[in-house]
């Protein structure tokens, strides 16, 4: 079976044709090119991975991106910053609050705006809630990738409550545009904090349930332990951030290492990848798929801790600093990175004295994390490719922007 040569999209010449060679027993065997995606159940959107396979073995995997490119950065150079906030929603659409947050922080640094205390607390609450929601999707869809169909419905059941909370706060369930330059658009609605506390009491035991259902499931561990191992050096060299980096054993979290907003006031741990033994299933190594998955599960617990501290300490007061709509951006540039659920989202905002930025550049964590796919998916089995891509947890909206 031969594949259509697709020179248009392929950069590597040896991927153009199926390579034929002589097998050990004199039989002529052929490698097969196969397109995984852009329409494929486990590429989490419109990612296309070109696989060169030898039977079930994947010799090489080359991701091709760009199917969801919407010129977000260019749009940013034609809108005022507060108008660009909704565009950041559409980048990592599973963590829209965090995107709003990081972009707002970048612009605030450029303008030198101080955010009111209450607004800062609300922002942290929203960011951490959205981190939980995003990790829930990661957990559920990873179960789907592994063929366990039930996890995703449990995850979405809990995510639903978070979305209800968001809806109560800002009226939107996916693209919030709630956190904005100078604070947040509205104050929290009545009883929001009580309902949040109610949710946390409900949610925390559920994480143990997920662990029993999936994390420590023997088949699941067998499928993910020791698969797609990324060493700490590789992770740093490829620019991995977020849970993917921490799973490789690097204790690096911007909320702790370069604290922004009010994260220095909270007590929380940075979960990192651990080898098997001592509560961690045997066979697990640092930097494998299981650790990438499990770091997210632990981060949900840490987010719950942060949220509880927020509930205890949130003050009353203003929720938005006075920032005029048509503010002129100073002729300066700011690059700011914040810790998103999937890694470090960075925004470079360059002003030139006009209300519209001269340049907006986003550094998407999914884009950088995805880049290691072809490095890791070498000599793995076909079934490991969804396992690896799923454990990197990409959102194509952010990869392509």
């Amino acid at each position: 079976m031969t594949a259509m040569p697709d020179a248009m999209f392929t950069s590597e010449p040896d991927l153009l044709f199926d390579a034929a060679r002589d097998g050990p027993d004199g039989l002529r065997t052929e490698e097969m090119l196969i397109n995984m995606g852009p329409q494929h159940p486990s590429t989490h959107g419109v990612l296309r991975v070109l696989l060169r396979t030898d039977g079930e073995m994947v010799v090489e995997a080359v991701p091709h991106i760009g199917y969801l490119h919407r010129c977000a950065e260019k749009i940013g150079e034609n809108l005022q910053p507060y108008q660009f906030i909704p565009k950041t929603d559409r980048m990592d659409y599973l963590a829209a609050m965090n995107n709003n947050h990081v972009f707002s922080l970048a612009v605030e640094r450029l303008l030198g705006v101080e955010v009111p205390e209450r607004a800062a607390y609300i922002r942290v609450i929203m960011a951490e809630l959205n981190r939980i929601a995003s990790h829930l999707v990661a957990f559920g869809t990873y179960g789907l990738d592994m063929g366990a169909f039930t996890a995703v419905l449990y995850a979405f059941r809990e995510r639903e409550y978070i979305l209800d909370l968001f809806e109560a706060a800002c009226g939107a369930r996916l693209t919030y545009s709630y956190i904005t330059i100078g604070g947040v658009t509205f104050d929290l609605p009545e009883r929001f904090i009580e309902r949040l506390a109610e949710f946390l009491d409900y949610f925390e035991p559920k994480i143990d349930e997920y662990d029993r259902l999936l994390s420590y499931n023997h088949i699941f561990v067998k499928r993910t332990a020791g698969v797609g191992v990324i060493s700490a050096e590789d992770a740093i060299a490829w620019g991995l951030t977020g849970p993917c980096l921490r799973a490789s054993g690097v204790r690096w979290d911007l909320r702790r290492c370069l604290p922004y907003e009010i994260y220095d006031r909270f007590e929380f741990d940075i979960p990192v990848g651990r080898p098997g033994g001592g509560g961690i299933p045997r066979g697990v190594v640092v930097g494998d798929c299981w650790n990438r998955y499990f770091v997210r599960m632990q981060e949900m617990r840490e987010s719950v801790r942060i949220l509880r501290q927020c509930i205890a300490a949130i003050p009353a007061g203003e929720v938005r600093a006075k920032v005029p709509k048509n503010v002129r951006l100073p002729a300066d540039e700011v690059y700011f990175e914040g810790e998103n659920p999937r890694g470090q989202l960075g925004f470079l905002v360059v002003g030139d004295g006009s209300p519209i930025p001269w340049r907006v550049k986003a550094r998407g964590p999914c884009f950088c994390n995805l880049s290691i796919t072809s490095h890791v998916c070498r000599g793995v089995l076909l079934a490991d490719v969804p396992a690896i891509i799923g454990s990197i947890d990409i959102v194509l909206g952010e990869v392509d922007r």
Partner: protein
Amino acid sequence: MTEFTAQDVIRPRWSPALRARAIRRFMLAGLIIMIGTGVAAVCLEIFGRSLSPLWLTVGIVLPSVLAFGALFVVFAITAHALLGRLLKRLAFVLFIGSLAGIVLTAWGASLLFGLVDRIVAARPDPIAQTIFGGELTTDEIVRFFAATPEDPKALEAPPALEFVAYLLWPWQFRLLRDLVLALVILGFVSVTASFAIWWERKVAGRIQSRLGPMRVGGWHGWAQGIADGLKLVQKEDIVPGRADGPVFRLAPYLVFIPVLTAFLALPFSDRWVLRDLEVGLVLVLGLLGIDVIGVILAGWASHNKWSMYGALRVAAQMVSYEIPMGMALLLPVMAAGTLRPGAIGALQSGGFHTWLAFCSPFLFAAAGVYFVASLAACKRAPFDLPEAESELTGGFHTEYSGFRWAVFFFGEYAAMFVVCGLAVLLFLGAWHSPLPASWGESLAGGSWWQRGLYALLFSGPAWFIAKTYALLFVHIWLRWTLPRIRIDQVMYACVQVMLPMTMLLLLGQMFWQLLVPPDGITARAANIVCTLAGAAIVAAFVGTAGWGYLNRRRLVGPLAVNHLPGS
């Protein structure tokens, strides 16, 4: 004009006036067609004597066929319009009725065949029955029923008896009997499959803390399986452009028909079997093996790389699970000393502790091994690699849709029933109830309520189907709980773990039968331990499930029950 709501899409509300108008229009159209055809026919009758056969066909036969078709359509539409609401209300009754009807048909047929067999046996020179039947005449049947068979006057029997004789006469032909029973089996498989589809979706829903299908048919969406089937049948028939057409078309039937044929040797109860063959088990295993060829062909013929992966995976999986599965089946065969399903079943009539799985520790372990292998045989999770949705986008049936796809799934559910039925037959007491059959003997010949109690407690087909469905439930339960295994792990588990294990079990069972006297203290102790273990498993399952059901609201958490207000 009432307001149009979403409910109208789900369940259209026909106003009585609208309904009456529709009926009138359809009936009018039918009437016009019929009158037109009648006029044409009369004209042809008058003028058409000299017409050629072609004109006769075009002028008379074709319009008649059309008229009959129109009449049928009008009748169907009118009936639906008039009775649709009634049918919907009675739908569940109809569903249960069709199940009961199938079982009753089989029961009635078996009674009928038994009667004919008795008549044949009562002949002075009993002849062997061939597929074309003995040479029973109606006279002989009448004489059988007459009080004194030798009396020639008996031939002047009441006409009713003669009528009965004519009714009974055809059933001496085995061909005809088999045809009827094959239809019964087809009906049973259809009902089982459509029930299993609904059941699977309901169980999946409950496991995933949602409701599952709730719309179609009214009561808990019971008609979902039928609706799914109808939807698939009416879909467009698609064969991919570069697919190998004939093979592509053949493959689904190659999956379905062998599984259907396997029912041939599956005994639902004592004598409730089409053919109680000496090699029944081998036949069933062989037919389940053919099943795989269909899948391989489907994957290969689709001209799709993902399909081909599915096909090659099913081949690899088959050579892995088939041997442990067959060897695990050898243990009960060894214990029973026969391959005849009926004989193996009859062996286990002495109550729960005489079920073969509890007779020795090796058989107990073999039951577990067989069950795991049977999951692989049905391509069910965690062995669903050939269709592995998240890896192969659908595997061997990626390119299939509509009716052919439905046939694949028909085959899958039928295969699930067969492998579970095999497990019940060989390990779990076949069609016997957990109570010893000897307890029922005094009931069987008693008064009507004693016989009723006997039917309730000891009915063979009911117990067989119930036990098989219990195992089917475990299949479904596992599918919605476990992740999928990788292909190398399947092969490792089957070839390097299960195969040596079954070999050891086989050796162990051999020595057990050689060295342990069946009435000795060791055998009895092992029997008691295994029985208790089996009972404990059943009790734990029922207990946990019951506890979970009773506490479902607490388990799912407060927020799932009391949804957040204001959202």
